């Protein structure tokens, strides 16, 4: 029996009002919208039980319910109902199920279940075509369904139809043998498009090229058999670019050990050796996160991931699984770190961009618009972070139309673990393999191999997942707040890309073997084939190694916390990874081959030297308008709409918030104080300059590192207490020129990390951020992201009270610029505003900057500095505006004698020369401050004023900018005002 419970508000519903406004925006005929929450329940219940259920879902203060009866409102012409497709995570329905179970003391078995949907009753003169257009605008066809009914049909049929969107699979128990004794062409095809089903369709990309396929063939020939589908899928997951990072690992040109070993890791090793006792690192590159010492009692971990491809297909689902997924990199770090701060970075195309792109030539599958991606991604991280009770203080937005094909979604999590809880994790032979958390469904099949490919019409829809933060929160609390310190398990890791196939096989390295009984894995619905169970990326799961003697206690604890925990096998030291399904062996591969059997693929690069036209920008006497335009650019503007919807106060650890000063200006750095009774704090920031990449990837990486470090220094961090994380998001990484850029960027990572002695502790790469499809005219088109390197920085502060904020504080305070301003506008925001790129990209003088940063720290420790803002994108001009707006005070400065090079006013104002910080100090501290700074290039350029004006004099000391702060603020906060 299927029953329908409908709930509607008796009083004006803000959610309906918002929908009405949105829909009215797309179609002016929409006059009124009523919103009905619908729960479809598939299970036999008596009427009185249904009434009990409906009452528990209804707030009698303002809502009414109907059971198996249509909701009727005063006037409406159409009903539109949106629901999830079968198998898509439905969190609301899961809660309703819990409520019913608890209320009626019953169970849901077999295909019984609950499904949530939203019914909109819409009034307005709308024909069927218009209503369909509205309906399809409400959904994402990859995860939702939509149903329509005219008022006439709605009344005739007594409401919408009762539909329980269930997954029906019939192919269970199926294990196929894949014949590899075929031609090279056929091998290539299997690797590219996947194993063939009996009906001729393909299962989706394995992303294994011919050399890999041949190695696999050779291995199985030696065993005198062909692989099963599950074996081949499993190898594909483990060897995927996503999991194995082959491009960073394999030889490239003269570098035999590969980019990662030669540049990134070597930098860290050498820095750690050199620093000796000053070494901060406790765990680098091996675990789920990298980590440094916080103080004598605690360790801080950090990890930054990307979730680009899933977010391109379903922005909300992609982003929420991204953030909740990277939380598990903290929970799965060491024996389990508590997530204490989330971090985000979104690279989108201009949200106002109107041009459409299509995945197919027939133009049936259109890409989501940049605006829809932005809205969905912002909402996804909102939901994931806020629901999990993890503050999200730090993040950034970056725009470039080359992100139209594939947006970049960076998500990170900082974790905290007491030293006394930290041990070397090791699954021992005989330990149970235990999966904890969510159940396995079809979601996320081929996520790992898919993200190793360019986005195209063949991209698997199963790659879409929706996160369930509450299931994970229960899991996280049970592990980190209880099981960890009761020492109930020996090892723990995240179930991320590749699902069980990666997490179990990875952990099995610790014991050197495993035996899995796949039928034990709890499923969301029956009928899943073994290979899907093994590689599914269903979320909110962790894999643990639990000693047999501890299992009872562990299991009891998990039951009492409403967390599902299941033994699915045993770790052993057989040297083999064996998977059985109902006692039949379906996979038997030796561990050595699985992890190290992939052949090396040496790469060659081709140097690329770009030269762009120098822009012709007419010189203007007054730069008022230019500065106002600059402040409302997408890459400069306030993104307060995000900062104020991401909870950054939860856990009560906020010290420097995302919006600083009375004027609430987005700073570059946030600080959290994670332990209530310690004055220590953790500062987070980043650097990212994709606009420099096509000019010079070496300098791009240098600027990113310098900025990531300088942003922390400006907030009071000792350069000696900084660690870095790298996230390379490249494009077309089989193109020798792109590889050359990658090599140069990696080289810079080594060089600058060494100079600053800031080790890399963790990193991740995503190498094929390309879109291949069609434009509006049906022409084939390829859009690649600019080579993008995100350097995230993590810094330690001993005394939270020594932190410096960006807002100027008192009239009369002198303003200094530290560092040199040069004619370095190549790739700058100012040139971009003038639709040019230029060539003079900022060059970083690491040794000089380091000295400045050390002096700065000395001054900050003596509390001589009243405000400081790192000069980044948009240059001095933007920094002056931000520091003034934040302090809600005016300032007057002169560029006179600022640059020894005699460059133009506009160039001086907007040059993005690195290594510069703008500071104000108490006038009383002038002498002492200048003394500490004496070996650096610093200059007093003006002072804070008590009026509300920003006055800038040019190189010749004539006024070039004279603006009311209110006016600038309006521009600065206008761009995303209605987001």
């Amino acid at each position, binding site marked *: 029996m299927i029953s329908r419970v409908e709930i509607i508000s008796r009083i004006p519903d803000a959610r309906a009002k918002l929908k009405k406004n949105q829909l009215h925006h797309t179609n002016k005929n929409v006059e009124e919208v009523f919103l009905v929450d619908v729960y479809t329940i598939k299970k036999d219940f008596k009427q009185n039980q249904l009434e009990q259920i409906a009452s528990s879902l209804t707030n009698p203060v*303002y809502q009414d319910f109907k059971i198996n009866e249509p909701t009727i409102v005063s006037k409406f012409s159409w009903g539109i109902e949106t629901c999830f497709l079968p198998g898509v995570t439905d969190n609301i329905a899961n809660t309703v199920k819990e409520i019913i179970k608890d209320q009626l003391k019953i169970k849901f078995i077999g295909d019984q279940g609950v499904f949530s949907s939203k019914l909109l009753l819409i009034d307005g003169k709308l024909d069927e075509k218009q209503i369909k257009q509205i309906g399809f605008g409400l959904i994402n066809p990859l995860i939702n369904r939509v149903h329509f009914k005219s008022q006439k049909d709605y009344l005739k049929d007594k409401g919408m139809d009762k539909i329980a969107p269930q997954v029906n699979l019939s192919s269970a128990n199926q294990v196929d043998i894949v014949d590899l004794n075929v031609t090279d062409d056929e091998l290539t095809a299997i690797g590219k498009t996947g194993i063939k089903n009996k009906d001729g369709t393909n299962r989706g990309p394995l992303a294994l090229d011919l050399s890999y396929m041949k190695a696999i063939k050779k291995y199985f020939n030696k065993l005198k058999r062909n692989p099963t589908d599950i074996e081949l899928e499993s190898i594909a997951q483990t060897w995927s670019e996503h999991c194995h990072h082959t491009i960073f690992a394999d030889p490239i040109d003269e570098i035999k050990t590969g980019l990662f070993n030669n540049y990134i890791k070597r930098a860290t090793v050498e820095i750690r050796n050199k620093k000796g006792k000053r070494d901060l690192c406790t765990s680098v590159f091996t675990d789920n996160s990298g980590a440094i010492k916080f103080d004598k009692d605690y360790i801080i971990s950090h990890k930054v991931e990307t979730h680009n491809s899933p977010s391109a297909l379903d922005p909300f689902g992609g982003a929420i699984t991204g953030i909740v997924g990277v939380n598990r990199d903290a929970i799965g770090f060491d024996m389990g770190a508590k997530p204490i701060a989330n971090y985000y970075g979104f690279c989108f195309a201009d949200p106002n961009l109107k041009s459409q792109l299509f995945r197919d030539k027939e133009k049936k599958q259109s890409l989501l618009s940049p605006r829809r991606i932005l809205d969905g991604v912002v909402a996804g991280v909102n939901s994931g972070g806020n629901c999990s009770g993890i503050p999200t203080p730090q993040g950034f937005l970056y725009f470039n139309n080359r992100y139209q094909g594939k947006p970049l979604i960076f998500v990170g999590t900082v974790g905290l673990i007491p030293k006394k809880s930290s041990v070397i994790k090791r699954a021992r032979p005989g330990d149970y393999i235990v999966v904890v958390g969510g159940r396995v469904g079809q979601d996320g099949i081929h996520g790992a191999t898919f993200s190793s490919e360019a986005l195209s019409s063949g991209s698997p829809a199963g790659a879409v997942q929706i996160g369930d933060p509450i299931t994970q929160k229960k899991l996280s609390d049970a592990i980190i707040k209880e099981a960890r310190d009761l020492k109930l398990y020996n090892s723990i890791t995240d179930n991320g890309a590749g699902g069980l196939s990666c997490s179990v096989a990875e952990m099995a390295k610790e014991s050197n073997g495993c035996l899995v009984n796949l039928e034990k894995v709890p499923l969301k619905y029956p009928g899943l084939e073994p290979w899907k169970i093994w590689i599914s990326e269903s979320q909110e799961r962790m894999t643990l190694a639990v000693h047999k003697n501890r299992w009872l206690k562990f299991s009891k604890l998990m039951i009492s916390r409403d967390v599902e925990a299941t033994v699915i096998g045993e770790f052993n030291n057989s040297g083999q990874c064996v998977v059985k399904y109902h006692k039949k062996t379906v996979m038997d591969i030796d561990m050595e081959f699985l992890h190290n059997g992939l052949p090396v693929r040496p790469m060659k690069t081709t140097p690329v030297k770009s030269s762009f036209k120098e822009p012709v920008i007419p010189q203007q006497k007054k730069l008022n308008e230019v500065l106002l335009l600059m402040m409302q650019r997408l890459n400069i503007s306030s993104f307060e709409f995000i900062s104020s*919807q991401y*909870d950054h106060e939860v856990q009560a650890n906020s010290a420097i918030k995302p919006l600083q000063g009375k004027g609430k200006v987005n700073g570059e750095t946030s600080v959290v104080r994670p332990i209530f009774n310690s004055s220590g704090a953790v500062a987070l920031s980043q650097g990212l300059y994709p606009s420099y990449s096509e000019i010079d990837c070496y300098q791009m990486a240098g600027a990113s590192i310098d900025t990531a470090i300088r942003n922390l220094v400006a907030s009071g961090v000792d350069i000696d207490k900084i660690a870095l994380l790298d996230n390379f998001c490249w494009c077309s990484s089989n193109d020798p020129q792109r590889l050359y850029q990658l090599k140069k960027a990696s080289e810079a990572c080594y060089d600058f990390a060494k100079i600053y002695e800031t080790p890399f502790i963790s990193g991740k790469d995503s190498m094929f951020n390309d879109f291949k499809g069609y434009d509006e005219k049906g022409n084939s088109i390829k859009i690649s992201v600019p080579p993008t390197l995100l350097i995230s920085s993590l810094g330690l502060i001993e005394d939270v009270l020594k932190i410096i904020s960006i807002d100027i504080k008192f009239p009369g305070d002198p303003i200094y610029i530290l560092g040199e301003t040069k004619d370095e506008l190549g790739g700058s925001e100012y040139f971009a505003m003038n639709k040019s790129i230029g060539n003079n990209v900022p060059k970083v003088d690491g040794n000089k900057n380091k000295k400045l940063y050390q002096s700065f720290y000395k001054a900050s420790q003596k509390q001589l500095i009243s405000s400081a803002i790192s000069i980044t994108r948009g240059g001095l001009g933007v920094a002056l505006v931000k520091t003034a707006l934040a302090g809600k005070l005016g300032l007057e400065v002169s560029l006179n004698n600022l640059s020894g090079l005699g460059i133009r006013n506009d160039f001086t104002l907007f040059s993005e020369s690195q290594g510069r910080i703008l500071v104000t100090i*108490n006038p009383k501290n002038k002498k002492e401050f200048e003394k500490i700074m004496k070996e650096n290039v610093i200059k007093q350029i003006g002072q804070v004023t008590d009026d509300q004006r920003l006055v800038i004099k040019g190189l010749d000391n004539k006024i070039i900018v004279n603006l009311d702060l209110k006016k600038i603020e309006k521009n600065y906060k206008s761009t995303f005002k209605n987001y």
Partner: protein
Amino acid sequence: MSFPRRRESRHQALDLLLQRDDKQTTMIKPKIIVLSGYGLNCEDETKYAFELAGGQGQIIHINDLIKNKNLLNDFQIMAIPGGFAYGDDTGSGNAYGLKLRNHLWENISKFVTKDKLVIGICNGFQVLVNLGLVPALNKKYGERQAALLPNESTRYTTGWFDLKITSDAPWLTGIKEISLPIAHGEGKFFASNEILKQINNKNLVALKYSNINPTETLEHIAGITDESKRIFGLMPHPERAMFFTQLPNWPYLKEKYLRSGTKLPEFGPGLQIFKNGVNYFK
């Protein structure tokens, strides 16, 4: 400023069970139960705020309390902290409220009729309203009389706001105005005209937003009490304002104090609410 190093008391229901007997006899500090589980997430800082205020806090998972219902008798204060219980699905505070109602109603109704205190912060306030513990007009504990609806923007909103205290509830002794952070998606207070009239007549509105009304909540209401004024629910988070360095403008204040030679304060304004709760029993 120096931070007193406190011994970290462990969050372990098991420990609690073991310690219970010997603790009871030596009890000096008022004991506070802070509930947890199913997505509540502010239990650590709420407990810490009570301890900073001189109380003795204990975090207890709702399932452990259901198993040992009489545990509740050991406590003087019950705190339901902020969070996202059950993801706010079916309305914030509804599912957690139902769970308490289904399993612990008898114990809770006994608790609230004694001379004890209850506080619900943010999600905890939403739970209190759904449980019918506030406003509970005419002592009808258990009857839902008010609701917290989605913010008018329908968006989760975080930020610091100025509030006026409009009640003489013990929780608010000595506070006239206070600045606190909010962070919620459903904080728009609603009650029918009839109920609202009684709430006002009986002086049950505890605090209101002063100038800006961030969620367009009815009559700027940010928190209410029951008629005994011992049960207090509020949307803002006082535990996120227990330290000086949690204030949004503390770097400015620090510079100001440095220049005037004034000693820097250690605590924030939110702490007083917890002190009031603890002091009620002294």
